[in-house]
């Protein structure tokens, strides 16, 4: 945590991979300053290619969304709501109050407990690591694109040509390579306000719960945790504190892992298969 200096879990070395410790990211928008250092550090360490410079006009966000070449994405929300106990300004016209808040949140792959991409992958390219995170082995992926439509959060994507390593599916690796060497993921390491906290999942969950309580006592009435433990996703390793509704952050309110749809879909498929066989045999039997 901030104030712990080199003892902070964001700075000290660890053996989580060797000791099979479940790790996570806790991302807190109330201390994020929108500097995008996480985006830069991620790109640099992982050698993620640039995927174009476009002026979106959406506040200070010119990144847009997570994708094959964007593994951290700082969101900029402009909302006409009060932030904590701030004193709202007055309207330039009229005499009403003019509350405003600018919220920054660094989005990332959620590393689901039940991961849609991992379940969908037909090559076994996507695996779960010792630390419980979800990792794409680029040398195995053949770019079938099925993980793209199986992710309930719209994170993973296929990288288009002519970018380097085009054709494969890419997403956040949770800096698995750094973690194996006892290092902290690049985004958390570089975060100047520790809005991104890396650490043991159980510690982070406890810390996050306390943080929500503290914020609520300080007037942040719409502070809540975003960690869908009560849906088929069964929780995420990279979870978030949100001010307001998840929809405003482009996060699904009740994400589901698509494998829950398998039973009904296969039942319909088998019924159709049997019906087709029977109808064909009957057709020939009656016309012979």
């Amino acid at each position, binding site marked *: 945590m901030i104030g712990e200096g080199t003892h902070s879990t964001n700075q000290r070395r660890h053996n989580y991979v060797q000791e099979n410790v479940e790790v996570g990211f806790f991302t807190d928008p109330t201390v994020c300053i929108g500097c995008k250092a996480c985006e830069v550090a991620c790109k640099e360490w992982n050698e993620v290619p640039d995927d174009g410079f476009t002026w979106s006009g959406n506040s200070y966000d010119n990144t847009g969304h997570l994708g094959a070449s964007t593994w951290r994405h700082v969101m900029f929300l402009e909302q006409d709501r009060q932030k904590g106990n701030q004193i709202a300004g007055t309207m330039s016209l009229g005499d009403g109050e003019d509350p405003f808040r600018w919220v920054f949140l660094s989005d990332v792959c959620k590393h689901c407990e039940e991961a849609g991409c991992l379940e969908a992958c037909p090559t076994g390219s996507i695996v779960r690591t010792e630390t419980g995170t979800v990792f794409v082995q680029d040398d195995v992926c*053949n770019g079938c694109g099925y993980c793209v439509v199986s992710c309930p959060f719209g994170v993973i994507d296929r990288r288009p040509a002519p970018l380097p390593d085009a054709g494969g599916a890419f997403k956040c690796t949770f800096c698995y390579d750094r973690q194996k060497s006892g290092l902290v993921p690049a985004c958390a390491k570089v975060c100047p306000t520790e809005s991104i906290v890396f650490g043991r999942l159980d510690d982070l969950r406890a810390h996050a719960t306390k943080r929500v309580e503290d914020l609520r006592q300080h007037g942040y009435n719409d502070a809540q945790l975003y960690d869908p433990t009560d849906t088929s996703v069964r929780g995420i390793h990279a979870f978030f504190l949100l001010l307001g509704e998840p929809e405003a952050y*482009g996060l699904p309110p009740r994400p589901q892992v698509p494998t829950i749809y398998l039973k009904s879909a296969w039942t319909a498929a088998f019924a159709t298969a049997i019906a087709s066989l029977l109808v064909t045999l009957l057709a020939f039997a009656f016309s012979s």
Partner: protein
Amino acid sequence: MNSPASEKRLEQLREKAWQEGVVPGRGVDVVGGPIPRKPGYYGEPVVKPPVWTWEIPLYFFFGGIGGMSAVIALGAALFHHVDLSRAAMWIAAVAGAVLSPILLIMDLGRPHRFLNMLRVFKHRSPMSMGAWILTAFGACAVPGLIALELHAYHVFPGALDQLLRVVAGVLIFGAAIFGTLLATYTGVLIGATAIPAWFLHRTLLPIHFGTAGLGSAAAVLELLGHRIAALNFIGFYAAAVETALLIWLSLAKHGAADRAIHEHGSGWLIRIGEAFNGPLALVLRLFGFIPWAAISFLAGALVSRIGWIAVGKVSGSDPEAVFASQRS
């Protein structure tokens, strides 16, 4: 303080927003802006739309024809329509075991790694199951066709020819079983995803794809000149089921969650496709215009496959659809 020029511009934007509901342009939907804000985070997609291109709907079309042709080949073989069985096995082998894998491999981001599909067997991944079903189908259909042709021309004498007959029978049976799965699993493939318009219709999709495959296989055989009552019966059945599915689809609406099926160009593709292989094919067949019924059914089957992929792209790009599908 705003300058008169920017105030004037703001007035223009407000006027346009009032009249048209939306104003395209950058930076116009920030807080306090004149424009109704887009849903979610600046209207960005919540899930990712499919990256698949034209190969996939064509694969659904040919995979359906190939798989269900093997079923017709089995029925024909069991009831001694040898020529029909041979023709059906040719279609099964060409459409299901040659064209289908080529289209699938072409769609891969890294086609040279297509064999990685057979590294693992994952029953919870319809894509993995599909790769294995297609492999098993090919392994039955191609040798099955060869055995059938060798038997048909009596290339080998006596006992060996009888053995070929048995082998052909077993392989045609295998091709028929895997063929039914090849034609239907594609519905599971897109039904078990995070795309709202797809997963909301996950029971309809395998029925539609499988039945469209069966009707298309019969239609191709009819167009090749095999006019027998059995194929006509199958044609009636497929067109009737597709008509029922069209009614089902227009009754089971999920509001904003599956509006890609009922609005936009994607919705028209679905409707046109279903009308061609449903009611139109049925009516044409009732009046005895068999070749026209067959052509109508094939066109509808192809257009609706293209439509379902287009629906996925529209629905996957629509944040409101994802939110609506999770609200109830």
